[in-house]
Every structure is written in C-alpha cells, then in structure tokens.
C-alpha cells in the first residue's frame, strides 16, 4: 500500500525507542526519501532503533551493568518481600483486598524500578530502560527452557506460573493473570498468563521508564509547526 504521508506508527516508534541524539534529523531524512512504501519506512525505522540501541549499550557497558543491577536490586527486594511478611498461603488468594494490594504494589514497584533505571542513566535512559526490559523478557524463555531452582518460596499468587520465573518481574504479573484466567475456566492459563504477564510487565516498565512519554523538546533539533 502506498501513501504520500509517512507512516505515523514508524515515526512514533523512532521518537520513543530511538536511542540516537539525531533521531529528529533521521526522521526528516526518511520523510525526504519516502517514496510511498510504508514497509521501507518501517524497516528503516527498526534498523535505526536496533543500531542506535546496540551502539549505545556497546559504548556504555558499565552504565548498562549499573542500570541492570539497580533494576534487579529493586525487583529482588520486592519479590523477596512477600515470603518474609507472611502474606502467603490460601488467605492471600481468598482475600481480594490483599490480592489487589499485591497487584497494585507489583505494578508500582515495577514501574518505580524502571523509573530508577532511567533516572540513574541520565541522557542514556532510553537504551538502558530498553535493555532492562529486553533482559527481563528474554530471561523468561531461557529460564523455562533451561530451568532454575529458586531457593525462595514464591508467593501464593504465583500459583499457575512456572516456578522457574518466580524471580523475574514477569512472575507477579503472570500470577495475577493466571489467577484471573483460572477463575473464568480459561484453558492453557499457564501459557497464556506468561504471555499476558510479559506484555503487562513490558508496558509497566515502558511507562515507568518514561519511554512512552513525549520526547523532551529541549533535546530535539529545531522544528517548524
């Protein structure tokens, strides 16, 4: 399908996930070269996002390690918090207010972790938050395939989610999804909950990490209305 207007989705992707300081000039160049093929534009946008992401991570490895350690510290503190506070067991599942508080807490702390990663990374917050999300997402299939013995008893809300991912951010989100799906008798709730949990986690992190907010005008090259 050919159009005279550049595809808005590709432009949005570049503006929100592009790690380069030249993103606005790049969009201008793509607009100039745009011949009507949305696929060409989208491919250029994806390549630009990937190249700028890997370039920034490769050029700032220590900052990337620090960002990951910060995110993991917040996550570990929260996920270990449940077993030691005694908020586990059947009571947790039956008590809706506790379940709601737990779900809200997980969302807030997950977003806070991503926000902290973005704050300590300064102008490099986009690639660092993306790295944090990618690592957490990639860890799920790896853990499910390779397996991992978790020494900590995971909260009862994780029932239905595989134990291997109990120390990942996806775990609480998958747990709430599994709980909801099982109540409605939805089949394959374990698999579906891991997928839904991954999406929920990624969106929470994107919001917390400020990647879905509009790019700061002060950091963008001059534009005309």
């Amino acid at each position, binding site marked *: 399908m050919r159009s005279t207007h*550049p595809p808005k989705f590709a432009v949005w992707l570049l503006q929100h996930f592009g790690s*380069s*300081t*030249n993103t*606005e*000039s*790049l*969009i*201008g*160049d*793509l*607009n*100039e*070269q745009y011949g009507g093929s949305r696929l060409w534009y989208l*491919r*250029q*946008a994806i*390549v*630009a*996002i*990937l*190249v*700028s992401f890997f*370039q920034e991570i490769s*050029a*700032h*490895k*220590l*900052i990337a390690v*620090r960002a990951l350690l910060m995110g993991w510290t917040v996550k570990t503190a929260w996920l270990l918090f449940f077993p030691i506070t005694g908020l586990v067991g059947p009571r947790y599942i039956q008590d809706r207010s506790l379940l709601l508080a737990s779900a809200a807490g997980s969302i807030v702390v997950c977003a806070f972790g991503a926000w902290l990663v973005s704050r*300590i990374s*300064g102008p490099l917050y986009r690639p660092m938050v993306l790295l944090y999300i990618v690592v957490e997402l990639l860890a799920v299939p790896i853990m499910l395939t390779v397996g991992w013995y978790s020494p900590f008893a995971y909260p009862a809300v994780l029932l239905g989610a595989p134990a291997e991912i109990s120390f990942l951010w996806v775990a609480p989100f998958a747990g709430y999804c599994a709980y909801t799906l099982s109540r409605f008798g939805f089949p394959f709730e374990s698999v579906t909950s891991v997928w839904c949990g991954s999406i929920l986690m990624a969106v929470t992190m994107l919001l917390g990490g400020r990647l879905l907010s509009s790019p700061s005008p002060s950091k963008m*090259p*001059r*534009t*005309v*209305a």
Partner: protein
Amino acid sequence: LQRGYFFSYIDKMRKRDYLGSFEVIVMLALIRLGDGAYGVPISLEIARTAGRDVALGSVYAALERLEQKGLVSSELGEPTTARGGRAKKYFHVTGRGLREIRETKRLFSQLWKDSPALEGGKA
C-alpha cells in the same frame, strides 16, 4: 569528580580510537560531497560508489561515532516542510579527521604493498 558521572568517565576512557571500515567509507563519502552533506546524500553517495544500500540509521550511527572521536563536526540547518518540519543536520570532516583518513590510507597502502599474496589479482 561527581559520583554520578564516575561510570561515564570510565566508559569514555575505554573508547577505541581506530577507524572501522564503514567509518572510513562514511568519511570518504563526506569528503567527496564537501559542503551540504547530510544523511540522504551521504547514504546515496555510499550506495552509488560502494555499490551497497545502507540504512540511514547505520549512517547516522557511524557519524555519531566519528563525531565523538572529533573526526567529524555537525551543524543544524533550517527546517523545511518537505521534511515534516525537521532540520537537516550537516556534517563536515574536521582537520583531525582529514589527518586520520590520510593516516589510514598510508597504513593500508603500506600493508598492501608488503603483502605479496595481494599482488597479481589472484584470490
């Protein structure tokens, strides 16, 4: 030294300063184009002379690396409506960049000359 910038300084100290093959290609395209070189003509020049299509994102990534090394400088032009209101970013090779590219050529020529296997056009 502020604690918050400690990792940034360590990262800067570790940066490599030699040119990669794509960086050499981009710098040569910049030199050939002279004034008025920005993303589109640079990528077209590479496609025309090197015979390979390059994504604009890759060109900008190389230009960013070269700018960080001080081999290339840039300035913003006027925004135009044809570009959706975005300004062009013009790139120039600096004096240090010219010295670096001459040194790269000298090094390659020397290595080429001293490699008998490369003489005669046989693979």
